[in-house]
């Protein structure tokens, strides 16, 4: 019907624009979302992977957190959730979230790139909100 | 002990409350009550509201005179049709106190004065159509005994079939 024609033209137009925006948006800001194990495998296969922006989810190794004196620079180690032998150091130059610590099992998601020297240069660090970690009966009863 | 009593009271109370209608044969109101909005009335309210909005749009300069007249006659016709349907169905509602629309919509129903004014307006249009004074081309309501429309210059006298049917109901 005639009115449907106009409607679908408008719909098509907006759909096209939105698709274009999504397409370019994705290509400009996409990050591979990997586990440390996958990251290591990628880097081994493809040395240029050091240049690629990635997002990694893992866990902070207990006791691995240190902070430079007088400088906003954090160091800590991230280990894989399943295979603890796979780990790498992380360097981060911004404020860490309050949920971050290295005394409990804190899960983190970091964004950045994995440098040639084996250090992960992080631009974003997110730590899982502690309140969402629910204690088991054993933990509660001590 | 207190707990058991409490539970029994609550359960029994709830079950009784829930099953009472079925057990006693009490029926909920199922049909529509007389003063409730019907679909026809909803259409009438929409048309009247549209007329009011159109008038304000015209006065605040968003509508041309020509567009306004057209819109007005179109909406008036819709309101007329709805009113005719209503009277045919025997649900003629007192025009002075507009019925409460279902669930009291966010915008108010027209006040008595405004309702009266609009009803008078529609009555005029209706009469005009009946007497062939409303121009079928541009909707302009002309003075009695006109031969030509002062709005668009077209010839008056040919009452379009729609308007005639709506008026005769």
């Amino acid at each position, binding site marked *: 019907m005639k009115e449907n024609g106009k409607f679908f033209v408008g719909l098509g137009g907006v759909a096209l624009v939105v698709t274009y925006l999504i397409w370019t948006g994705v290509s400009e800001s996409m990050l591979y979302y990997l586990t440390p194990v996958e990251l290591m495998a990628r880097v081994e296969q493809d040395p240029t992977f050091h240049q690629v922006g990635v997002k990694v989810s893992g866990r902070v190794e207990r006791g691995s957190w240190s902070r430079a004196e007088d400088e906003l620079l954090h160091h800590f180690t991230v280990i894989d959730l399943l295979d603890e032998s796979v780990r790498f150091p992380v360097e981060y130059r911004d404020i860490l979230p309050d949920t971050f610590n290295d005394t409990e099992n804190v899960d983190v998601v970091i964004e950045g790139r994995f440098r040639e020297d084996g250090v992960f240069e992080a631009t974003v660090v997110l730590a*899982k909100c502690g309140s969402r970690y629910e204690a088991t009966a054993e933990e509660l009863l001590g | 002990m207190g707990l058991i009593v409490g539970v029994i009271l609550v359960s029994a109370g709830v079950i009784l409350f*829930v099953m009472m209608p079925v057990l006693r044969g009490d029926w909920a109101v199922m049909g529509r009550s007389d003063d409730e909005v019907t679909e026809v009335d*909803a259409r009438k309210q929409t048309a009247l509201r*549209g007329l009011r909005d159109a008038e304000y749009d015209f006065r605040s300069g968003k509508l041309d005179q020509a567009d306004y007249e057209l819109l007005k006659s179109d909406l008036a016709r819709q309101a007329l049709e709805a009113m005719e349907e209503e009277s045919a169905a025997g649900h003629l509602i007192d025009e002075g106190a507009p019925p409460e629309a279902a669930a009291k919509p966010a915008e108010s129903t027209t006040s008595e004065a405004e309702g009266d004014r609009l009803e008078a307006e529609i009555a005029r249009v209706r009469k005009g159509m009946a007497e062939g004074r409303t121009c079928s081309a541009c909707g302009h309501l002309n003075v009695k005994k006109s031969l030509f429309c002062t709005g668009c210059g077209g010839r008056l006298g040919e009452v379009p079939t729609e308007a005639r049917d709506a008026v005769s109901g």
Partner: protein
Amino acid sequence: MILLGELALWIALPVGIWGAVAGFVGGRKERGDLVLSGEHCVYAVFFLLVLTSAGIITAFVTDNFEYWYVANYSNRELPLFYKVAGLWAGQRGSLVFWVLLLSFFSAAAVFTNRTKNREFMPYVVGVLLTISSFFLVVLLFADVNPFERLPFAPADGRGLNPQLQNYWMTIHPPTLYLGFTAFTIPFAFAMSALLSGKLDTRWILITRRWILLSWFFLANGIIFGMRWAYEMLGWGGFWFWDPVENASLLPWLAATAFLHSIQIQENRGMLKVWNMGLVTLTFLLTIFATFLTRSGLIESVHTFAENTKIAFIFLAFMGVMAGCSALLIAWRYPQLKSENQIQSFLSRESAFLFNNLILLGAAFSILWGTLFPLITEGLTGTAIAVGPPFFNRVNLPIGLALMALMGIGPVIAWRRASRRNLVKNFRMPVIVGLMVVAALFLRGVHHGMALLTFGLSAFVMTIIIVEFVKGTKARARIEGEGHLLALYHLVSRNRRRWGGYIVHVGVVMIFTAFAGVAFNRELIQTVDPGDTITIGSPFGHEYTLTYQGLSSPRGKNMVRQAVALMTVERNGRPIESLTAEKVLYVKWESSPLTIVGINSYILEDLYLILENVNDLGGAFENEAGAQRATFKVQVNVLVGWIWYGGFVVTLGGIIAMWPSRGSTRTAPRTKTGGKRPALAARS
């Protein structure tokens, strides 16, 4: 009491199921007794949920740590405030909270319709109780019973995460939940319309206020979340495109689209199928929002602990709801098609349609970006994520287009607008917009997108102000009233329109605030007591902060607290001092909490974060040498306009929703339909 509450939950399920069945059967077979029974079930379920909630709250308030849920979210030292709020602190309790609110709204809907819209109510009852029963089934059978007990009661609970121990915790989740659950009512009426065959606009007229109410709570809930993040999180921002944030935005976008498209159906009788689809989509998105939060499907700082069982159950529920709605719409499709057509591209219908398409486009792209890791992992084996740059990039043009529409909408007439009138009405606002852009450009603002935003903002504001002026003058002339009275009557006679315009003003203010982010300044510095930090703002103001030192008071439930004090001067004149803190709460010693200091002005905020103290332990003990600290100082440009805009949106929403002085009922009401009619009387 607690046990009573637990049993009430068990009683509620069969009551809910019976009520749903009674509603559907009663509607189909025209059995008024079943319908009445169903309506009683709605009231009963609400009553039982009140008992359940009271039971949970009692457990918290009496420190009954035998209950796993209480032990996880409370401890003895916790202020009473937060013990009561424990009801919605975690996954399990928040499910109860959801059903409580849903059953409350259901009871309200049934009560206000006890003598009207009766043809709809049987199926409304059926749908509402079906949905409530679903949640009850989840609570009772999916390992999320809040009344689960431990083998014995531990001495004390874990306590509430310090990040949740602020008043926002009592405001933000409840407001959002109110918004989510309230939307179930319009959905139920829509399904009832489909089931009963009353396919005209009545279901929309009946639920208009519910739609507005839901939208209102959603908007406020989202803004509260932004304020919470800004005030409490210590990152200096208010939105992070976190999956759960996005999930709450989706139903709001759909509800906004729906608010506009129903007007097309009301005024022109068109888009009936579209509206049916949109109400379903919005409802599904409310369920999706809670699903995303509960299932842990997407990594988020917000998600409850991961729970696959819940994930599957909710997915199945959404699938069933979507399927049933689709079937119903398809079944009624022939009767839903409208007689009218869009007459002109240049019309308000057209503008509203664009509004819908754009809003849904935004929703789609946000959904896409949020689920992208899942989609790519499913398709290629490797997960790919997109972050804030993606969302900002995609939504910026959409936001600009929406602003333009907010300016065009009020001016363009229904059906067919005349081009000449449009040009005439746009002339001044466009000039004002261009003047604003030029003035800002000359003052040094060269950021393209921001200029565009500010220009559009001026354009829309001008149009809305002119609308108010023209409307007031027109009314004053017609009715012969003074201008102030005319304005009052003008708004009061058409609350939805004028309330809506005020909402648009608020939204424009918020978008303007977003543009301000492009001009934020920040600085990171490590200082000893006596040192100063200087930061300038784009408006030419200069702030000098002098670090005074750290002190160590200790508030309730805190182990330690370090408060850094900065005296501040603005352009050489002293203003209110700023404090920034790091706090350690009882039981949460490994996670210090950052509390920021904010000095707010109309055009900018001065924002102070205590990033680090070299010797935190020493600082907590008030040791002299432990005073060196690192601070992040920010000037956040125009951020206050989000909150001011939020107030305006709230005001507009209240005006739009305000009940009008309709004419009073003249016919007497009967409460029930009486007894079962004699068989002969029924046809």
